[in-house]
């Protein structure tokens, strides 16, 4: 297997895929949004329970590949407890990371750095960012459904 593929499917990714964290509905959520990737049909829902400006709880559920599931799972771990502003900042950093534009911030991404392998596979950028788009939509009360295609620049197609 190529080194790039090994980097894409690091064991931390495969672990999150097998046993995703916070993979559950959230009956007392204060916000939620769906993410849909129209080209492959993957979809997931992200729930948030906000406590003022901070994310008290976050969970997700849905259909997706290992990359999208692992990315969502890791996302729930790092976003929980963060402020709205910090979550937005993380969105930007992850987006930069998976599109290969990560700079110094990468140092602060911790476990999320496992997603860096995605940048070598333009078609998978959408997978890695699907949950993040949904999270941001929920965070800003957009709700409804976001598709990765509408998110512009990161599309390889």
């Amino acid at each position: 297997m190529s080194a790039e593929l090994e980097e894409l499917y690091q064991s931390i990714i495969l672990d999150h895929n097998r046993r995703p964290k916070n993979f559950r509905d959230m009956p007392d959520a204060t916000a939620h949004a769906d993410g849909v990737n129209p080209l492959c049909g993957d979809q997931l829902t992200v729930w948030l329970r906000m406590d003022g400006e901070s994310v008290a709880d976050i969970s997700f559920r849905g259909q997706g590949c290992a990359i999208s599931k692992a990315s969502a799972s890791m996302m729930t771990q790092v976003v929980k407890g963060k402020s709205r502003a910090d979550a937005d900042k993380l969105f930007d950093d992850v987006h930069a990371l998976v599109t290969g534009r990560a700079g110094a911030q990468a140092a602060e991404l911790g476990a999320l750095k496992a997603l860096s392998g995605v940048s070598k596979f333009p078609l998978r950028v959408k997978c890695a960012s699907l949950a993040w788009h949904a999270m941001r939509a929920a965070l800003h009360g957009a709700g409804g459904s976001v598709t990765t295609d509408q998110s512009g620049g990161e599309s390889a197609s």
Partner: protein
Amino acid sequence: MSRQTMSRTRVSDAELAGMTSLAPRSDFPLLAAQPHLHYLDSAATTQKPRVVLDAITRYYETVNANPHRGAYRLSAAATEAYHHARVRIAKFLGVADVDTLIFTRGTTESLNLVASAWGRANVKAGDRIVVTRLEHHANFVPWQALASAVGAEFVIAELHADGTIDLDAMARLVTPRTKVVAFGHVSNALGTVNPVAEIVGMAQRVGALAVCDGAQGAPHLDISVDSLGVDAYAFSGHKMLGPMGSGGLVMRRALLEQMPPYQMGGDMIAHVGDEHTTWNVLPHKFEAGTPNVEAPIGLAAACDYLTALGRGNVLAHERALAAQAMAALAEIPGVTVLGPPANRRGGVVSFTLADVHPHDLSQMLDADGVCVRAGHHCAQPLMRALNVHATTRASFYVYNDASDVEALAASVDAARRKFAG
């Protein structure tokens, strides 16, 4: 790695080694340039033989002009080349009335033409349209949209567990109110070869239009469209070694003559008045605007190439490879092969691997040079019924051989081990 996997399959190495390709790989520039590529996505689009590329280039280098409208020899030559391509493709498809072969961009456009031009003029509120659960979106959404636009009923004929159509149930759905029965010749998602005659019979009993999506039929089966008895048959040239943008619709002359045109513009008119316009004869009535002349010229070269391979050999070749792939895959723990037995399908093998997402699987396979498709295969209604979100699909064609099957099985097995952790 491959040895390890193959030793577990029921197909012996010796048997596999015996399956050479039907067409020399060296005839296909892309495959020749990438010797380690295992191209198993021909149901999506095929690679093109050199003769097809040459036919296109030669057209532009020697006779390119706008056909039909020019009195000069170059335009006459382009007209003649375009017409001659129609004659050859009609012959290949077994269509005697050459002018009932309408050139389109492909299957999708052909089916939209029928649903729009014939459908809008003939399907009324309260009528029924029957499609099958196997359909590609191209033979599903246009009918669903037509039904909703005119207030007709849209009904889906369901499948047996093995992915074949439940014909008894379908026959009950095809009531006297039914105006359209739309079905695929061969399923692109499962490979199922459908019993055209039975379905045409249902449609004929009630006077409904029998529309066959031949996207996966024309490239693989040794068909005569005339003998199929369908009212309309749609196909794509790019799935049968021809250029992208080539394809067509074969439809009964009486229907084509009665129905209104689809697109309007140059070539398809007889007289354009300030208030009213009259239409040209077939096939022009349905080919508005400057035709894509290179498309049928390339496709005709593809038809000649397939004829030289022996039309009847194509399905047999694919089916043998598919059967071997099914056997090899079935031996891999966690693999489920979907769809009917090999003798009721074409060269398509759709499968799932435990809880490994097809997107990940195909990415792993790609690293080994194995090109397969992962997803819903433009058949979301079918995926729902199969209760899968997506599948991985390998599809075989004339240039594939045993090494492709071997690489597929080996690579799937390696991915399984990787994801099992």
